[in-house]
């Protein structure tokens, strides 16, 4: 292949073959679209992070600290809305999925490249509308928009509802695109049992995105209609049923937590294989458990409604069904550990994040089973215990996987290496900072600290201070990562074609890849992550 002088990187890559702004904004290259999504979600993460720090600073003292109560209500809504809708949902599938999925399949691009670009602009439009609504006056309903309050709140809920509604279309389009790509664009030799497990998780996620997101769209539209037109769908004083809102909302939003966590599990699988130099233990079980989680995830939504007036019978059924998810999750955890066992382990930063992921996912999952037990949840519902539970999964697990993906694929995406020592320091800071932030929140919740409260009794202060201290560590860690990654883009050492000696299929193309991923049609003659051969795969 065509190499630049004195380097093993392709001379012409997707980054340098055209460099005008226009060539980026109108690109149909899945890799560039993936990079644009990455920039978008990282910006959302930054915004959400600033709101989070504001919340933690307010909670340093039991009384008022730096803001008014109403500002606090707006702040936690801004934080939740940004983190869930603008960051978590698109983060791994739209950014990394877009970049590596077609390469892993040996395809030149996704099935519908124009639609892919449209998806990005729809995401951008929805996000801008949401941010505009937030800056204009900001909602105070929380990211869940529970009725009847959200239909009467004096703040500007409607633009934010519509913004999230629009982002939903981006989710659906991207999901459809990936499903079609997996069905139609696999390179010769790629049977169903050779598809990389990251692709399987993206596929499972896409099915959820396509099936569940329309329900979210409907329910948001109904709330907007109730606010604007005064229809009586959820408001009991107009003959509506507020619990119906929760049914529809969680019918989407529980599966949505798997939209977040399944791609994360896919990243973990790739990284575990690459740094333990072994193919995954139990490929078929890991692939099947992905679909087990995706499927069972649709039968558990009522565990968010135990104290909402839902029937006792309903709560019982949903409680039992929720426990099933733990079985499929456990299958994955056992398989990752079994893969690590006896492997030739190379403890690079992505693997460090994986270890953090496994540990924190167990905490999050086990407390999930605990809060799915009706009798316990009556005590814990709407307390910091639940806040800690879902942050363990969303930040402790999904964000760890996001960072693992960022560090694992960084040389692939940009052809640069980052400084290893700094990245280790940042990873340790983040894992430690995370635990200090959220472990106290379990204790606070158990003591009865309600979520979304501005004030609290004095005896809870030391735990809140601890939590704020941890959050500051987290912020420091993220700052560090931002600095050394930006630094590496310009000054980092040039990365070898296969920086980690990985056998994953995405490394069959150059780093950074050429504009159409491969200079000749790739052939996948070995199993994915086959480390029985000594030499790294050739680059097509």
């Amino acid at each position, binding site marked *: 292949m065509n190499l630049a002088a004195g380097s093993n990187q392709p001379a012409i890559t997707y980054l340098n073959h055209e460099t005008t702004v226009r060539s980026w904004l109108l690109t149909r290259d899945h890799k560039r679209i993936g990079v644009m999504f990455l920039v978008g979600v990282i910006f959302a993460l930054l915004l959400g992070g600033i709101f989070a720090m504001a919340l933690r600073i307010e909670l340093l003292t039991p009384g008022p600290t730096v803001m008014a109560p109403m500002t606090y209500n707006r702040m936690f809504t801004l934080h939740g809305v940004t983190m869930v809708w603008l960051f978590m949902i698109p983060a791994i599938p739209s950014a990394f999925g877009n970049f590596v999925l077609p390469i892993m399949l040996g395809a030149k691009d996704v099935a519908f490249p124009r639609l892919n670009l449209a998806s990005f602009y729809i995401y951008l439009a929805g996000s801008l509308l949401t941010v505009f609504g937030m800056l204009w006056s900001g909602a105070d309903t929380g990211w869940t928009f529970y009725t009847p309050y959200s239909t009467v709140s004096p703040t500007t809920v409607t633009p934010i509802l519509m913004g999230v509604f629009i982002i939903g279309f981006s989710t659906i389009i991207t999901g459809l695109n990936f499903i079609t790509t997996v069905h139609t664009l696999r390179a010769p030799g790629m049977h169903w049992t050779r598809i990389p497990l990251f692709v399987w998780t993206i596929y499972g996620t896409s099915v959820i995105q396509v*099936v569940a997101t329309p329900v979210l769209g409907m329910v948001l539209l109904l709330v907007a209609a109730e606010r604007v037109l005064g229809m009586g769908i959820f408001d009991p*004083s107009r003959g509506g049923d507020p619990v*119906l809102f929760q049914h529809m909302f969680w*019918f989407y939003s529980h599966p949505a937590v798997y939209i977040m966590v399944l791609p994360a599990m896919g990243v973990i699988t790739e990284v575990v294989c690459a740094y333990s130099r072994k193919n995954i233990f139990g490929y078929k079980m890991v692939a099947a458990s992905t679909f087990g989680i995706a499927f069972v995830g649709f039968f558990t939504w*009522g565990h968010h409604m135990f104290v909402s*007036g*839902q*029937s006792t019978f*309903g709560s019982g059924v949903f409680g039992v069904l929720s426990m099933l998810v733990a079985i499929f999750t456990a299958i994955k955890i056992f398989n990752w550990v079994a893969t690590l066992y006896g492997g030739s382990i190379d403890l690079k930063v992505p693997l460090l994040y994986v270890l953090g992921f496994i540990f924190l996912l167990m905490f999050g999952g086990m407390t999930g089973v605990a809060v799915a037990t009706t009798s316990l949840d009556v005590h814990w519902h709407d307390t910091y215990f639940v806040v800690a539970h879902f942050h363990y999964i969303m930040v402790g697990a999904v964000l760890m996987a996001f960072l693992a993906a960022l560090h694992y694929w960084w040389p692939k995406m940009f052809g640069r290496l980052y400084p290893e020592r700094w990245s280790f320091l940042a990873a340790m800071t983040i894992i430690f900072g995370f635990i200090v932030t959220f472990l106290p929140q379990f204790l606070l919740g158990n003591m009865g600290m309600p979520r979304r409260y501005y004030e609290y009794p004095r005896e809870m202060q030391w735990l809140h201070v601890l939590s704020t201290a941890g959050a500051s560590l987290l912020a420091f860690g993220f700052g560090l990562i931002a600095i050394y990654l930006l630094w590496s883009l310009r000054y980092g050492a040039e990365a070898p074609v296969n920086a980690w000696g990985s056998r994953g299929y995405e490394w069959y193309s150059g780093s950074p890849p050429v504009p159409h991923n491969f200079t000749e049609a790739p052939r996948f003659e070995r199993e994915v992550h086959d480390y029985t051969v000594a030499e790294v795969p050739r680059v097509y």
Partner: protein
Amino acid sequence: MAEEKKKSAWGYVVVWGALTVLTVATWVLGTKLKLGAFSLPVALGLAVMKTVLVAMFFMHLVEQPGARRVVLPVSAVFLCLLLGVTLLEVMTRIRMSRPDGIEEELEPRRPESTRTAPPGSGSKRLMGN
């Protein structure tokens, strides 16, 4: 659509006719005949028939091969899941937390002190406070 052969439009006209008949039937059954408790299931049944016709013929689902045929049944299953489980939950709720249960709250024979609605709010009003 390279292999597309000339198709006559008559099939679509027939489907359109069927849709019109079903629409008229919905109107007649809903306004002229009093079906009582059956009116909702009948109306929903007719709506489902119309949806299937539109999806099958105007959206060309009948012509699709292979895996694409799975789309409609899968969507139907998930819709049934959402509606079925939600209805099951409402049916097994205690009366008080059902949308119609508030009438019990307003019943005149209940002692005033146990009502949540302020006295004097008419029975038309579904919730007093």
